[in-house]
């Protein structure tokens, strides 16, 4: 495994009585996408702010490309890009004007700043809107401008704090495409999100954060494997529910959950059960099933299981 480019060890941060981080550890290999998943208030944003030098940890330390985020903040800032939860651009300026200004503030020469602005606008499909005031941009265009503003200096590490919160599905797709393109260039991305499908789509590795700590890490597939496949059974007659539940309990070794009046769901043990066996067992018990399906769990189910929240009734 290559050297991690982002390392956080034992980060603690409190605001008054609120412990936002309680010993957060994180390690992101160069050139990968790390998805930091967690419910609201889990400490995701606090962690990103510390890594991006905006905030100092109370305890613990973090390094980006080997530079300490507190003692060598200047070196860190030259290597990172940060896109927060807002489109942090000047609404009164044009898209091009913003990129040129941030280019100059990144200490590019005037000519370099102009050229870089045009390159980025062209590459990320904002050339047509380049000379319009940002105030007139759609939410998705603003986020895209915000994202490419982080790319002016070709950062080694890009922090994206909930990059698609509040966007419509099409704009989300566009942001995802942009992120994939960056990763193809070799940029390391640390992405926080509440959307599990976003992490599923983009992340190589996922760190699930709750109450200021990382409670699980792994690839999406590894995380899904930890809770086994799911079996969903829809009955023809809701009256057969108790009988079906008994059958599933015997097969899976755990109590199934009733997800609807005529539907049951259960996590299967890793010792693969075949669909045919399940159907046969139900048949023996005289249960008529309208639909029986075996599937990988969704990240939602993994997440809910890990963070000990009740599965929502569907």
């Amino acid at each position: 495994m290559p050297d991690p480019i982002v390392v956080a060890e034992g980060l603690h941060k409190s605001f008054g009585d609120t412990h936002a981080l309680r010993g957060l550890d994180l390690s992101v290999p160069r050139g990968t996408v790390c998805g930091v998943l967690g419910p609201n208030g889990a400490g995701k944003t606090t962690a990103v702010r510390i890594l991006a030098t905006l905030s100092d940890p109370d305890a613990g330390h973090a390094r980006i490309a080997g530079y300490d985020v507190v003692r060598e903040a200047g070196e860190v800032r030259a290597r990172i890009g940060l896109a927060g939860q807002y489109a942090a651009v000047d609404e009164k300026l044009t898209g091009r004007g913003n990129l040129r200004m941030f280019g100059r503030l990144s200490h590019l020469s005037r000519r370099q700043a102009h050229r870089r602005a045009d390159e980025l606008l062209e590459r990320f499909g904002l050339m047509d809107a380049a000379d319009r005031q940002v105030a007139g941009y759609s939410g998705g265009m603003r986020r895209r401008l915000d994202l490419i503003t982080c790319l002016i200096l070709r950062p080694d590490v890009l922090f994206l704090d909930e990059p698609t919160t509040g966007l419509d599905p099409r704009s989300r797709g566009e942001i995802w495409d942009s992120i994939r393109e960056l990763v193809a260039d070799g940029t390391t991305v640390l992405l926080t999100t509440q959307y599990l499908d976003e992490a599923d789509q983009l992340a190589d590795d996922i760190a699930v954060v709750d109450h200021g700590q990382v409670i699980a890490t792994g690839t999406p597939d590894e995380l899904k494997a930890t809770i086994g496949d799911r079996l969903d059974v829809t009955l023809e007659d809701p009256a057969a529910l108790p009988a079906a539940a008994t059958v599933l309990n015997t097969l899976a070794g755990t109590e199934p959950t009733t997800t609807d009046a005529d539907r049951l769901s259960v996590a299967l043990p890793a010792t693969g059960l075949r669909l045919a066996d399940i159907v046969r067992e139900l048949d023996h018990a005289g249960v008529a099933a309208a639909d029986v399906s075996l599937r990988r769990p969704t990240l939602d189910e993994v997440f809910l299981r890990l963070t000990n929240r009740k599965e929502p009734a569907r």
Partner: protein
Amino acid sequence: MTALTTPLGRLRWTLTDGLTLVGRELGRLRREPGQIVAALVFPVIMVVLFGYVFGSAIQVPDGGDYREYLMPGLFAMVTFSAWLGVMTRMAADASRGVMDRFRSMPMARLAVPFGQTGADLLTGLLMLAIMVGAGLLVGWQPHRGLIPTAQAFLLMIVLRYALSWVGVYVGLAVKNDRVADALVPLGLPFTMLSNAFVPTGGMPGWLRFLADWNPVSALTAASRELFGNPGAPSGDVAWPLAHPVTAVLLWSAALLVIFVPLSLRAYMRRGR
């Protein structure tokens, strides 16, 4: 490229980045020249409202023309809009994440407050020029020659710059553009509670005390004196009105000494 690590490099980049941010404000103005107009609508309305409506009933102490008396007060009013404007801009950047972007970039950190106050100075000069035009139009003029006139405008600029640092601090402290917008109307009673529109002599004692010591009054009195406009206080007057030029310089120095370090500390602090 000089690095940010040497003192000289840091100074150079503070200036360069500060100028870039001044350029940002000018770019905004070019896109929305209405901002200047909006900021001036109020003082210009005051020229008409006070100059002609209330002015017809207000007696200037030494019997001068009321509009000659009024204009120095309105110049002071425009000067004191500095802290409100800068506060609103700083709070907007803080609440929309632009400030975080600046802080996470490898730019000179001090450039942000210096750029913002520098930009305000330029817009302030522009507004002052427009107000001078309005004044000349209604019959105001300086009477004491070039040097005292220049001194009066210099005083306004010095105090304006000091006030813009109050704006930096308050803007960073409130961090929220809605709160900042809600504070803006407070500017009006603050300027009215002074000698800008009426002599303070007729106010009840406690109110007169506040008005006499209001820096708006010192600036107004100083410019009346330097322009040779009517309304010089006579008899037993408060110290700032008896020595208005010194008072304005002291106010400016005090504001800078207090608010520059406070602002810089608030800007550099990394907490939340």
